[in-house]
């Protein structure tokens, strides 16, 4: 489990400073998606069955949250991309989440996702070499 990645730590660190409600749940949703996305890039890759199970659990958890609408739309679009694209889709998916995260949850969350996207791009580059 990649629980202590800097971007994840940053998002978890934002939780106590974010007021209760859709914003806090937005930070939580971003953290959940980031965890799954980063685990997709693990070497050796996680088994297909485990991946399907995790994506299903993530989808179920996100559906129970009260999220700001733009973030919900972005996350709804991101999940199928992650499911189908696997590790290769991670940098793109994270990059598409930066703007809605900034707009709805705050700059700090957006910046954390952006850093995670950059790290994923570099990670994907080194994997392909």
């Amino acid at each position, binding site marked *: *489990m990649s*629980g*202590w990645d800097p971007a994840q*730590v940053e998002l*978890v*660190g934002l*939780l*106590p*400073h974010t007021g209760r409600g859709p914003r*806090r*749940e937005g*930070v*939580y949703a971003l*953290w959940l998606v980031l*965890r799954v996305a980063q685990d997709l890039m693990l070497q050796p890759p996680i088994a297909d069955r485990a991946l399907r199970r995790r994506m299903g659990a993530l989808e179920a958890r996100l559906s129970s949250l009260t999220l700001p609408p733009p973030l919900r739309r972005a996350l709804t679009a991101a999940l199928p991309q992650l499911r189908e694209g696997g590790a290769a889709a991670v940098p793109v998916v994270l990059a598409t989440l930066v703007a809605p995260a900034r707009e709805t949850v705050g700059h700090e969350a957006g910046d954390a996702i952006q850093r995670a996207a950059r790290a994923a791009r570099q990670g994907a580059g080194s994997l392909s070499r």
Partner: protein
Amino acid sequence: MTSEEAHPSGVLPGRLPRCVLLTPCSLLPTPDPHYIYSLVAVPRILLVRFSALGDVLLTTPLIRALRVRYPAATISVLTKQVWAPLLSANPHLDEVVAVAPGQSLVPLARALRAARFSHLLDLHGSVRTRVLRLLVPGGWSGFDARRRARQLLIRTHRDTYRDRLPVAERYFEAAHDLQVKPDAGPAELFTSPAAEARAEAWLARAGFEEERPLVAVAPGATHASKRWPVRHWRRLAAELVQQELNVAIIGGTADRVLASEIAAPKGWVISAAGELDLQASGALLRRCRAAVSGDTGPMHLATAVGTPVVALFGPTVEQFGFFPYRAQAVVLQRDLPCRPCSSKGGPRCPLGHHSCLEELAPEAVLDRVLEFCA
């Protein structure tokens, strides 16, 4: 009886009965694996409830039951720093882990992982505890907060609650594996000798007439729609004084203004709002003959120290699980079609009339208080 003499059961002392030795395992009744575990291992239990006053106090029946069932267990509670005094003197606990305002969950999660708890009970079900559950892998369990039934009751007034279980007993669902049951006792607040001394000092400063019994009133509430109107409180306080009772107003710093509107400048109605901490407020409540409160934390504080309570319920109802728990209490509420309108109260009555509390007459409350004081 010599050592070789048979016991009345037919079994020689120090030897297993032959029939048991020869019985195939598949024929023996299969005991619950959790029960076997409870016999051989000493559990390390963490209960997580971050807030608020009433909810934290309502975890104490579970803590007590756990201690009775597992005298040697390590029992810890994780809560916000502001509520830690509610549990700091609890003899059933080994440790209270307090989270400072704004403290990140990451170092906390690291510490909890290192502590290797065998049972992690999520008694909150909030975003923070969900994050903690993922950061600290282990034997987590939660309870059903009946959120769906609550929302349905508020929005459609259809009661789909399958039981009337108080919140304090819902927490036991999280401890299902530990096989504990409610002991029919109330919530508890243990106060330190220092807190008792602070309460005594406040009483001495207040200068109440000692022969008059003391009654506490708690007019504050976080959400305005849960507050009984100030004019009712003022009237009640005046009536209580007429009945030769002393009145202490209990509350936090945020309730100071409200308390000053009720306190009589030269009378026997004196405000302790914002002057006493949680422990000392509990100690003061213990010295009262009765307490009057809305559906708020001080109501649970009073029940936790064994003071009879007159509880005034407006926007919330019994189904939510926050009626005074296993205590000497009377709940006053109006039977209105608009109730409940909210789970925690709101800034104003959604219909604007606030009849649920406006129509609870001070005289009715006074009668109940006098019954307790008689």
